[in-house]
């Protein structure tokens, strides 16, 4: 069982992420037992038969950088877990996908970052609407993950509007007007 960060806390996690290997057929691949996050291709191929599990909260769907979140727009009220995959931590498409899911498509369930999810990106992930982050298994010790929680709050008053805090700084606070003394 791996450890994830959810809502700012470390938690044990029992979800399995199903990844298709070369040659696997989305329509027929056998799903692992228990709670499972399936790739978009599997969801699209077998939506009817998976719907009940999704409604019961034991099946989620993950998207990757090249996937269009519009593909699951209609399913979002049903889904309780959507994950976004970071194939490499420097591939920033997942941030835009998360922002779109939360704002454009109004997704309110758990939004999880999976793949190459590292602590130095937690802050940006949180701001883009991820409420859970799943670093690669074994990447961090428990102690390192504890230390990493601080990364969620690196910047206390960010400038711009984002998913977690929609108002930009200039709308949140009355910022001091012109500096008083002349330079």
């Amino acid at each position, binding site marked *: 069982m791996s450890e994830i960060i959810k809502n700012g806390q470390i938690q044990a996690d029992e979800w399995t992420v199903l990844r298709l290997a070369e040659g696997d057929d989305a329509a027929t691949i056998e799903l692992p037992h228990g709670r499972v996050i399936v790739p978009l291709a599997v969801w699209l191929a077998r939506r009817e038969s998976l719907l009940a599990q999704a409604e019961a909260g034991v099946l989620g769907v993950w998207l990757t950088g090249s996937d269009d979140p519009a593909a699951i727009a209609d399913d979002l009220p049903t889904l309780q877990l959507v994950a976004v995959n970071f194939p490499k931590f420097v591939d920033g498409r997942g941030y835009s996908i998360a922002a779109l899911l939360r704002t454009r498509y109004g997704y309110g369930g758990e939004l999880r970052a999976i793949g190459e999810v590292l602590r130095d990106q937690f802050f*940006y992930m949180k701001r883009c609407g991820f409420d859970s982050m799943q670093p690669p298994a074994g990447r961090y010790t428990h102690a390192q993950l504890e230390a990493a929680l601080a990364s969620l709050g690196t910047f206390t008053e*960010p400038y711009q509007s984002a998913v977690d805090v929609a108002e930009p700084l200039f709308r949140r606070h009355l910022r001091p007007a012109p500096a008083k003394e002349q330079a």
Partner: protein
Amino acid sequence: MYQYDEYDQRIVDERVAQYADQTARYLAGELSEDEFRPLRLQNGLYIQRHAPMLRIAVPYGNLRAEQLRMFAHIARTYDRGYGHFTTRQNLQFNWPKLEDVPEILRLLASVQMHGIQTSGNCIRNVTSDPFAGVAADEAIDPRPWCEIVRQWSTFHPEFAYLPRKFKIAVNGAQEDRAAIQIHDIGLDLRRDAEGKIGFRVLVGGGLGRTPILGEEVASFVPWQQILNYCEAVLRVYNLHGRRDNAYKARIKILVKALGVEEFARQVDAEFVHLKDGPSTLTQAEIDRVAGRFNDPVLTPLPADEAYRARLADDRAFANWARRNVRAHRLSGYASVVLSLKKSGIAPGDITAEQFDAVADLSERYAQGEARVLHEQNLAFASVREADLHDLWQQLHELGLATPNIGLLSDIISCPGGDFCSLANAKSIPIALAIQDRFDDLDHLHDIGDLELNISGCMNACGHHHVGHIGVLGVDKNGEEWYQVTIGGAQGNQASLGKVIGPSFAAAEMPDVVESLIRSYIDNRNEGEAFIDTVRRVGIEPFKTRVYAERSARQEERKPAHV
């Protein structure tokens, strides 16, 4: 210039703490080389040929005296006593130690500075007109808008890991001095028929391997919506820019692949949703930011008679004034360019002693402020005409009064092979050799306006594509050669130079430039600048001359047959 408030300060302080922790984890082996790289790059730290190189953001080229003094201190304490101004108005140190960088950043934060997003695949330091706020041809002061873009782009969570770097420039004057056509986004401030402020938006400019001039995607975005619009551009780019090949990852490639109409359509489709959202700007915010610039209140003065008299009878002073002094929007004042292009010194380099002295002079003559030009020089925005002569004498002592602004010896050059590990060839020695050949002032003044840009490889850090004469280092079987282009230009009539033919060895470069100049002098009309002659007669006469004279030189060198 803009003064931080407590929020701005807190953000840079928190950045220093974050980076100190990241460096410690890297040194302890908890962060791999690959994991650490983007983190250090987004704080301006490259690992170069000899040592790390630290790039410090000079937001749209604005500096204060205390910041110049901090540069002097850092140069002395952590570097080898000098720094280098870049073609993006930033400052680089070439010799800091990786372990010292958190401390350097802490010192910088103490004077409202940082290295945030000066490198890496994120939104970079915003650049603009160095004469913003004082230029006679300015319609709208770009600085508050630059600062607003700076704040919005600082740690924008959605756009910290773009396919490639992303550069934004803002212009507010008749003449574009911010090179907006060679930026990923060029923002051109303007007024509509009713006098309302907005932006013409250009997208997809950039140099590098595939030089492209930006194209207009929106003719007028009202100022309230400009961040929403930029967000739409960036989202389209972040989702659809290529990530499979770093050479094809800039937004310019996406715009070309889609065509500008389709690109604009996708941006509009995104903008529809973002328009009027939380990032919509308010008049109160614009006023607040503009107010924090704390500009000195200058009252117009009568034209200074003594200054005019001196111009008439002091030729050296007049030469300097002709090239290094610019008109100011107010009578009785001028802007002064400090040349960092003295012969024998790498273009853009400045010593710790000069930093300190410039700080002192800025306080005495220029309200404690200085500007950085993307041509790698410094400027004082507002100097009283009556002070010009004194200032000139003191700049002269410091080696900062070379009267060559905009002339052939005002060479723009990247650090090249002496420092940069990506280089094909050295740039600085070429710049120095050309300066050395053209050291006669009268001749230089006679040649007139001419921009010569040198890059050590096709990454184009020296903007060679837009040099009137562009020099590019190329690798020929492991040897350093140079390809020459002419006809490039920045500004309103931006254009990309054309290659004149096969490349040259380093030792030939001064001769090649000389051939180009002779060809220009023979072909020019009365009062016509080099670039205008090239535009009128084309590259052929230049090309013919250069290669004919080259053959003649080679003939001469052949031993005579016995």
